[in-house]
């Protein structure tokens, strides 16, 4: 595991991956275990939901109208907020730690005194972030799939995988943002702060745009729109939307590599 920057970065995440993986599986299992009782309450749940202010519903349950259908349930309980939030926190943590974290700990100079170009170090560390998020997503999806079969929920393994993949792409966009801010400034705190703030703003923008008129024209600026806007759980992964997220990752990654190459390392 010490053969390359990529493998070492993954190795450093061993413990984190173990705990995050366990947590995500638990989240999948325990959420789905509630599904049968949720479904049986059926119409009452629906009535309760209809009495809530629309803004609140949009914020915490998304646009699904029928919360007792498998898709409505999964979206409102997991995919609107919880899953993207957790994936993003992990990706931002790794993205900000990649360069800025190592720089603040003072180990970056020693690493770069070896014959590896700066861009390659940043690139391999981002690749490690991609792999780590993918591992977590896979574990989470397995938890979802197994439990959904167990509780007799028919959502389709393929659709759940597509929704999870969409969340991975969203998280990686924010991971790349965290990497870029860290690469440009060398400050881990700034990197986490900026990415989280942008993440929260993007979430609210996308969630409230349907009911807040002034936000409406800007909804498509939010990465969350490209994550959930086309409801991947119901309709499958929207390739155009996925491409927008991938494009965002590529642009931010390029910005990270270029800014890192140009600046002085902090002492």
């Amino acid at each position, binding site marked *: 595991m*010490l053969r390359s920057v990529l493998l070492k970065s993954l190795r*450093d995440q061993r413990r984190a991956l173990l705990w995050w993986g366990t947590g995500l599986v638990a989240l999948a299992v325990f959420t789905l275990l509630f599904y049968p009782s949720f479904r049986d309450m059926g119409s009452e749940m629906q009535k309760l939901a209809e009495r809530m202010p629309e803004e609140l519903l949009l914020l915490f349950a998304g646009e699904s109208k029928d919360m007792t259908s498998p898709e409505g349930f999964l979206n409102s309980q997991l995919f609107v907020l919880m899953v993207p939030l957790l994936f993003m926190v992990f990706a931002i943590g790794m993205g900000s730690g990649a360069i800025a974290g190592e720089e603040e700990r003072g180990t970056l100079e020693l690493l770069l005194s*070896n*014959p590896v*170009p700066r861009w390659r170090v940043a690139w391999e560390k981002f690749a490690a972030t991609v792999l780590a998020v993918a591992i977590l997503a896979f574990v989470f999806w397995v938890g979802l799939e197994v439990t959904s079969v167990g509780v007799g929920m028919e959502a389709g393994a393929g659709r759940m995988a597509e929704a999870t993949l969409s969340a991975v792409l969203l998280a990686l966009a924010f991971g790349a943002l965290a990497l870029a801010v860290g690469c440009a400034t060398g400050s881990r705190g700034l990197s986490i702060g900026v990415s989280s703030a942008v993440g929260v703003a993007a979430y609210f923008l996308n969630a409230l745009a349907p009911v807040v008129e002034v936000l409406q024209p800007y909804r498509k600026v939010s990465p969350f729109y490209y994550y959930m806007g086309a409801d991947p759980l119901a309709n499958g992964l929207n390739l155009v939307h996925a491409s927008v997220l991938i494009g965002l990752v590529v642009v931010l990654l390029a910005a990270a590599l270029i800014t890192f190459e140009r600046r002085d390392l902090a*002492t």
Partner: protein
Amino acid sequence: MSETVILAEGLTKFYGKQRGVVGLDMEVLQGEVFGFLGPNGAGKTTTIRLCLDFIRPTSGRVAVFGMDARQHACQVHMRTGYLPGDLSLYGNLTGGELLTYASHLRGGVDWGFVHDLATRLECNLSRPIRALSHGNRQKIGLIHAMMHGPELLVLDEPTSGLDPLMQQEFYRLVAELKAAGRTVFLSSHIMPEVERVCDRVGIIRDGELVVVESVQALKARALRHLEIHFSATVPPEVFSGIPGVRDVAVEDSVLRCTIVGTLDPVIKAAARFEVVNVISREPSLEEVFLAYYDRGDADAP
């Protein structure tokens, strides 16, 4: 004529308004041990980090092995071993794991040699780095710099934290590297250390290179404080007349003076009396500078 390994031309670095180094012209030749001497904040670390492309010059340039440090950073790093002045290592790895990582990044090293180094420096490679003392971490940093047998070693205060025995071992290592034709560029605060291991010395102060000189020339002008205790009072005139001797003061039976260059005439003169004790003190860095500035004056050698 040996080749130039490091060539700095008008090298200037400002951190915003803060001065790093200013207009540094310097040459380190192949096969020599070059010492970089200066007080805190003089600009030693700044110069070293410019050589390795961790920071970029405000103006001027620095070339290593004839290659621009910026354009060819990777090739320079390939042929160079570096010890940071402010060493931080991965605390969660053991020394051995850290060196394994570095060896993979370098495409392999001779492990027999690495273990040799570890044995000579009495360095335990199997303990987690976070559990090591400062000096023992420094040893791992030294091995990391030397493990691939680089043509050039750039060492920022290499002996900081090493006990006297390990310092001696380090001096021996440097002597061996020199014998093998390697080039060593090291920074230090300590005049005797530089005198001991270096061929040439660059003295830097307030970001400017004051002088570059061979160690012999520096020694010839080196300042030393001497204190001789006699069994009876001695006449000061005996000593104040000797060339290179200054600040002669006799208090009861104790003579204090400052000597530039060799001690020999003073010792010979003292031998006429009964000597109880001789105490010699190395000059501080500041005094070394003063000695340098005095060169133009009357008592130049």
